[in-house]
């Protein structure tokens, strides 16, 4: 166990920039935008709309409504962390078993008493747990700073930040939901993570192309065959991947109420999963038949990654 953690720490050292700096930059972006918004409202002409008016409007809302607005707003702010985190994990895994082959440092890593299984486990654990935790920490810090700035702005505009704002917020619920959704997504995304590690373990160069081209070519070919045939295949690879992605339990949109399917990244959510942000809906995915198939696929990919990793020093 200590060895596994030592290897995870190694991953952190190597990727400090993307694991720690990236979420802090997103947090900085939120803080700066908020400050600019407040300054803009008070110092410059913004159609006469000032923070005092905003505070007044806030005061007219029911406490329940204020709580809901805050909850959805905070949940919504997590989307940016989620999206950027996905990119960070994607590129991390793509290089995880590739970079040390390229610079030959694999010969050093293999001189240490850590099995290939443990090495791959450490990379997977990093992607599934360490990176989400780093982003979570940055998001919490961002929320706290925003709460302080918001309270000061409300206070300066004559409102009471405690009754208008702080007491109605439910940060632990937001953080809990986001954490749950990220961890659930770590499991949901295992087929993708396995695929990336597999590509990373064998690609002779440009792992990005090796990761993206085969599914792309397959989808196009399948679509083409479908087009030529009189009957249509129900699911082609492309639409399966798309469905899988949009069925992710990660919160990709903050939904108001329970209108059912919302909009994620500009694409309508489809499939038979309920996209309302609830723990039940996350678990619903993890205990689905799709998940079981996904885990089997992931296992095949990871087995392949291990096979290649063992032979990475052959020639």
């Amino acid at each position, binding site marked *: 166990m200590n060895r596994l953690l030592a290897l995870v720490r190694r991953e952190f050292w*190597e990727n400090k920039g993307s694991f720690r700096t990236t979420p802090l930059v997103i947090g900085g972006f939120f803080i700066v935008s908020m400050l600019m918004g407040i300054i803009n409202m008070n110092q410059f002409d913004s159609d006469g709309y000032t923070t005092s008016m905003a505070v007044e409007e806030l005061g007219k809302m029911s406490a329940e409504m204020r709580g809901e607005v805050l909850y959805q707003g905070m949940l919504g702010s997590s989307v940016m962390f989620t999206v950027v985190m996905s990119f960070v994990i994607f590129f991390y895994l793509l290089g995880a078993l590739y970079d040390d082959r390229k*610079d030959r*440092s694999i*010969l*050093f890593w293999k001189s*240490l*008493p850590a*099995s290939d299984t443990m090495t791959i486990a450490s990379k997977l654990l990093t992607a599934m747990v360490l990176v989400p935790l780093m982003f979570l920490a940055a998001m919490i810090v961002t929320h706290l700073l925003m709460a302080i700035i918001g309270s000061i702005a409300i206070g300066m505009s004559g409102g009471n930040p405690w009754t208008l704002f702080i007491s109605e917020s439910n940060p632990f619920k937001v953080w809990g939901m986001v954490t749950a959704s990220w961890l659930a997504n770590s499991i949901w995304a295992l087929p993708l993570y396995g695929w990336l590690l597999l590509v990373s373990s064998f690609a002779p160069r440009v792992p990005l192309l090796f990761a993206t081209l085969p599914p792309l070519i397959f989808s196009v070919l399948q679509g083409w065959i479908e087009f030529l045939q009189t009957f249509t295949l129900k699911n082609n690879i492309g639409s399966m991947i798309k469905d899988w992605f949009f069925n992710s339990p990660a919160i990709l949109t903050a939904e108001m109420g329970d209108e059912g399917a919302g909009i994620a990244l500009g694409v309508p959510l489809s499939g038979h999963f309920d996209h309302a942000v609830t723990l039940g809906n996350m678990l619903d995915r993890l205990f689905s038949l799709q998940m079981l198939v996904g885990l089997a696929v992931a296992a095949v990919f990871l087995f392949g990654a291990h096979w290649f990793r063992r*032979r990475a020093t*052959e020639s």
Partner: protein
Amino acid sequence: MTPIISARGLTKRFGRTLAVDHIDLDIPPGRIVGLIGPNGAGKTTALKAVLGLCTYEGELSVLGKNPSTQRASLMEDVCFIADVAVLPRWIRVHQLIDITENLHPGFKRERCMEYLAQTKVTPNQKVKQLSKGMVAQLHLALVMAIDAKLLVLDEPTLGLDIIYRKEFYTNLLNDYFDEQRTIVITTHQVEEVEHILTDLIFIQDGRIALEATMDQVQERYVELMVKPEKAIEARNLHPLYERELFGRHIFLYDNVSRDKLHDLGELHTPSVADLFVATMKGGVS
């Protein structure tokens, strides 16, 4: 004594070519073995098999373990330096020490720090900021702090200047080697290691061309330097190899009595380098 490395019919194929061709080998503990061969002879491939870094055919046992299936546990007792370029460039010195300490049960931090204190390497530096010589010192410091039973060095001083190379072998011999440990070295700089070796293995086209202790080498082989008029006589005694230097003929003999040769000219003990060239070109078995 049970051998540290024991191979029977060790073979490695790359497609149709045999990189290692049915090698039988026993290396006992407490030896410093020089594995010497021309480029592409299969030295590195054989060592990779020993270290569990490639698949192979035949039987191979290292410290009683099967390297292809038990690499991780084998590495607790085996260290290797492939060449100076393999330490990850992004890592800091103290991180490298931390992770080695966490993964290696036999790692002694104080020993590593002691050794590093004699160099210009500082804990906060990244490997990419170090010179090639300093990287070699760092790697050696890590390895010397591990209580390993077998140390494998594959061209450990490639690209280093003579000062670092000398220092590397001096440290290895003075601070590391003892009766319990075995060191296997491959290198092209034969002259630099020949005085520290206890055993010699020549490898050619994936096969062992010569396997002997240094004592045996000194007993068996003799170099004779003769004037041209005696050359024919010397040639009749079936030398392994003949070369000319400043008008003198130099012959290398295997197992020819020194009394017979004494009358013909000057006798020398051949250097490993000369023996190597003779073996490779003469095609001795």
